[in-house]
């Protein structure tokens, strides 16, 4: 694809200015990305998706922009949405495959990369990653930890390690960007610990906007599952926000998930997210009340010097 001319950029810009719902936001955002204006492109695509939440190409582009900003979890989410909207979308399939390969999820990588290769049989980066994933998908876990290097391509996935993997691998105290080691952290850690010990509550965690655990834990069977839950569910906030915006239902205020064993509540708290899990034996309303208290504790922490 040839670079956009200044005249084209001007025309698209005028179209978007005249009509915020114009689809010209997409070529304009692409042009900004080519010019290295990532932030401008990002804002444009996010605004465009508020008007067109089912736009597959926009989700794909947003994924690329997130990845270039080092936000690999958000990038993964966008390509996941793009594929949910259009399972045949080759570019998103490609990026998902490369991310899965980088994470060491070789079975998923093979599934995505095989389809991506059908779309472009001459994609060297995809072919190399696929061959590596083929050879490793049935290897013992210890041998399958580090993907082999792949020749870089124009759109090489240089994403940071998946937040879940990083968060799970690090001791919980090492995952927070700031606010650790002082009284703010001690206070919020203590409050989340106390909330997690409430009747029927499995755990309570405070997450940052990248899905990293800042405080608390969710202990299941003696293991802290907070990082795993957080990594998957934190991306849901952006997705929920777009779904709500598209339906004219306002900004997201909370998500509730129920299973036969548990009730999980997630609410925004400043630029963080609070997650509380309770056993199904306790009423849902009780879990919601504990989550509201956790949110208050999180806001005190984030407002009192604990924010990033």
């Amino acid at each position: 694809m040839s670079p956009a001319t200044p005249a084209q950029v001007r025309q698209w810009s005028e179209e978007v200015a005249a009509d915020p719902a114009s689809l010209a936001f997409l070529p304009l955002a692409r042009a900004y990305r080519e010019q290295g204006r990532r932030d401008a492109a990002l804002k444009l695509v996010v605004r465009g998706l508020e008007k067109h939440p089912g736009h597959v190409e926009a989700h794909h582009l947003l994924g690329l922009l997130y990845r270039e900003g080092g936000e690999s979890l958000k990038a993964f989410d966008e390509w996941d949405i793009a594929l949910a909207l259009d399972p045949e979308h080759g570019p998103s399939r490609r990026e998902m495959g490369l991310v899965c390969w980088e994470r060491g999820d070789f079975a998923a990588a093979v599934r995505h990369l095989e389809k991506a290769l059908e779309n472009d049989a001459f994609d060297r980066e995809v072919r190399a990653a696929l061959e590596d994933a083929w050879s490793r998908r049935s290897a013992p876990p210890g041998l399958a930890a580090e993907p082999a290097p792949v020749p870089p391509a124009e759109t090489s996935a240089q994403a940071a390690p998946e937040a879940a993997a990083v968060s799970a691998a690090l001791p919980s105290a090492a995952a927070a960007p700031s606010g650790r080691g002082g009284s703010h952290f001690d206070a919020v850690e203590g409050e989340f610990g106390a909330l997690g010990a409430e009747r029927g509550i499995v755990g309570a965690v405070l997450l940052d906007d990248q899905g990293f655990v800042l405080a608390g834990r969710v202990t299941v069977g003696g293991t802290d599952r907070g990082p795993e839950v957080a990594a998957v569910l934190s991306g849901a906030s952006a997705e929920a926000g777009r779904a709500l915006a598209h339906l004219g239902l306002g900004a997201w205020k909370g998500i509730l998930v129920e299973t036969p064993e548990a009730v999980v509540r997630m609410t925004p708290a400043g630029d963080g997210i609070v997650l509380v899990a309770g056993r199904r034996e306790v009423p849902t309303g009780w879990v919601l009340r504990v989550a509201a208290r956790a949110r208050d504790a999180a806001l005190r922490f984030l407002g009192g010097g604990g924010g990033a």
Partner: protein
Amino acid sequence: MSAYRELLERVNRITGVRGAMVVAVEDGLIVEEDLMVGVPGPAAAALVASLFRRARRSVQAAEFGSASYLQVEGGEGLLFAAAPPQLGDLLLVVIAERWVNVGLVRLEAQKVVEALG
């Protein structure tokens, strides 16, 4: 009238409900819908199904079992997605105003789904 259509109509009788759909979990496609004018069904179905799949992955990662219900609250309204065993790999999706009686929606959804089984 299909059994699904009847289910949706009963849920839609609740004050504050703007519409309901039966949606395939895996691909987000609408199987049956009964929505108020202006509610964009296909995009909503795709996005809610995607959210539900994510929620399912999350609770499975925590060994909490399989997600059976998802509720997303916005400043101006609510989205519900229920996955009762009677619907197999389908979701009952409800779009409602913020002030809707959540308990009533859940109760009615449960009653009509049980009637299906």
